[in-house]
């Protein structure tokens, strides 16, 4: 007797319960703790890749690719500061703390940036002599934790960046777990060694934009009105946040999107709070334009910048400069496949390693372990960063020339189209092949 055989369907995994979601449920069940990691949002969200430049054609004249001048310099902070900063390229190095990064990595960032005439930024944990010494232009962060904050370093800085938020975690404070609180890090932060350190998410002595205005005035008074003062915000309500930063007296607004890296935060925070940069630039620029402050208060944007096309797109949307964190670390050697065997030992693979908070980075960058940190040669790594920055500038110039611009700042939204309806709506440029800007119908109805 032949038994009836019920044929199986092809095994199908759930789109919602994919392998990653399942592994996270198992991880949570095993530990009872949320997942902490470094880096930025990893899932796909609307991005600068969804934009294209049109280039020159019958109605636009291009510039010769190699010969004709195409400026890349940026002046920052000429609103109030007696000593504004001039960068040779519109790309700066974002604030990354000594603590999250080794002293050698900070030195390499300084060397690379200085070689290209641009700035680096301190981070949550204070200024080290290494980074001051190797950075010709150094921005000093003023964070809620105020770790290592002191007036001497404030006066040594070339600019001051008041950090309100970060794109990876708008509304969240910093986090540095015990493994990375070495003796030196602990001393700089006035904390015991080896404890988990959670930086405050609110500034201790001001709340709201009216207080911030007074705080900025204090910082100007302490430094005799010499230094540009930046205000850094995570992309959340970019129109209002930018307007309020301007109102509070910022010389420069730094706007960081959700793909922007962090040294360590809860995964749920990184992936689910804040806006992608693509959605944040136009509202911020609109706020500046509405206040008559576009190009007077400069806008630096960050969060997922990888190449010269990204740089050019941000500038075309109205930013004055961009800043990079993750890409700079990759240029130094982070996540390099040469360390694949070690990444495997850590249960990951090159390109996916993000347990930066554990301090076991095979590339010796996100660590305080002296043996690992020694693996990074600051001179060589600095050279690599300088090369990479040069390419970003060259690529942005290539695009600008193709669009007929003699300065990268002359790029404009009219040079762009979008590949998706979402990107068209967010960047407020037409969907490719159409003249449709979704949402433009509501123009004049007020901010977004």
């Amino acid at each position, binding site marked *: 007797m032949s038994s009836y055989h019920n044929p199986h369907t092809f095994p199908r995994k759930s789109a919602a319960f994919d392998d990653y979601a399942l592994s996270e449920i198992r991880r949570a069940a095993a530990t009872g703790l949320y997942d902490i990691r470094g880096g930025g949002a990893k899932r796909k969200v609307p991005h600068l890749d969804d934009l294209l430049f049109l280039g020159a054609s019958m109605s636009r004249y291009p510039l010769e690719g190699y010969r004709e001048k195409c400026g890349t310099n940026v002046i920052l902070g000429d609103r109030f500061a007696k000593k504004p900063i001039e960068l040779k390229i519109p790309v700066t190095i974002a604030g990354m703390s000594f603590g999250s990064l080794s002293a050698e990595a900070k030195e390499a960032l300084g060397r690379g940036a200085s070689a290209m005439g641009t700035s680096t930024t301190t981070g949550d944990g204070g200024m080290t002599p290494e980074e001051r010494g190797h950075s010709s232009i150094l921005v000093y962060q003023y964070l809620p934790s105020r770790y290592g904050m002191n*007036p001497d370093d404030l006066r040594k800085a070339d600019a001051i960046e008041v950090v309100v938020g970060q794109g990876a975690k708008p509304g969240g404070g910093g986090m540095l777990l015990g493994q990375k609180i070495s003796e030196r890090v602990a001393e700089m932060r006035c904390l015991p060694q080896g404890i988990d350190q959670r930086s405050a998410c609110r500034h201790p002595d001001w709340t709201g934009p009216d207080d911030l205005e007074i705080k900025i005035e204090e910082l100007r008074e302490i430094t005799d009105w010499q230094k540009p003062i930046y205000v850094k915000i995570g992309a959340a309500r970019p129109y209002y946040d930018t307007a309020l930063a301007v109102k509070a007296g910022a010389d420069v607004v730094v706007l960081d999107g959700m793909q922007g890296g962090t040294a360590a935060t809860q995964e749920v925070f990184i992936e689910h709070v804040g806006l992608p940069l693509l959605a944040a630039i136009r509202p911020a620029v609109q706020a500046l334009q509405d206040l008559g402050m576009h190009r007077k208060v400069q806008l630096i944007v960050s969060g997922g910048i990888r190449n010269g096309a990204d740089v050019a797109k941000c500038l075309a949307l109205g930013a004055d400069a961009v800043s990079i964190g993750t890409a700079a670390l990759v240029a130094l050697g982070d996540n390099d496949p040469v360390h694949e065997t070690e990444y495997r030992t850590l249960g990951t693979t090159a390109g996916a390693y993000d347990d930066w908070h554990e301090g076991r980075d095979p590339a010796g960058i996100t660590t305080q372990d002296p043996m690992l940190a020694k693996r990074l040669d600051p001179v060589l790594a600095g050279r690599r960063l300088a090369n990479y920055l040069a390419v970003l500038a060259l690529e942005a110039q290539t695009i600008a020339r193709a669009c007929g611009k003699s300065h990268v700042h002359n790029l404009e939204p009219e040079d762009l189209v979008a590949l998706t309806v979402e990107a068209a709506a967010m960047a407020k440029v037409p969907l490719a092949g159409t003249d449709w800007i979704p949402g433009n119908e509501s123009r004049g109805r007020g901010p977004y």
Partner: protein
Amino acid sequence: MTTRVIDLATEGVRGLNAALHADKAHKHWQVLNPAGLHSIAVGIDAPTTVEIDGHVGYYCAGMNKHASVTVKGNAGVGVAENMMSGRVHVLGDASQAAGATAHGGSLIIDGNASARCGISMKGVDILVKGNIGHMSAFMAQAGTLTVLGNAGDALGDSIYEAKIFVRGTVAGLGADCIEKEMRDEHKALLFGRLKAAGLDGQVDVGEFRRYGSARKLYNFTTDNLDAY
């Protein structure tokens, strides 16, 4: 000793601070008509004495180094914020966040201090003769906070290694802050603080209780979830 008098009604805060930063040799300064202005006498880096005749606004004596600043009136938000060294003495009351994040020196408040006194303090010695408001010594890392009166709610929330001495009542303790034994070494420390404020012989260290970190939140574990 000559006194250099600066009238804020005519020279403004910028005039005062510019002079204080430029003229480091000058030993004694008198500031007239402060009228609640902000950022008075900030960023001093010299062993001078500054006497301010009246009430001051936000951040008076912010980031002070070496100087001795006396406010003959009340002080607004963040007096002596991030002080590194020296001494700031408020003869009246102080608003929120007095001595916030200060790394060193001493802050003495003759009256009361409002909420968040000593928030994120990193080594300063703060002494308040009156009461302090809620959330004081929030995330306090190092230094001492001595209160002759009472403390408001959530004292020492998420405190690290700072030491708190309170003579009066405490409305409530914040996460990870507990009362601790007052051993001889703490009595000696407190005596030193009282003495520095000229209160030795007037105030008895035996009347104080000590508060500090239970150190349970120092390393994150799921067993502490109810504390977060």
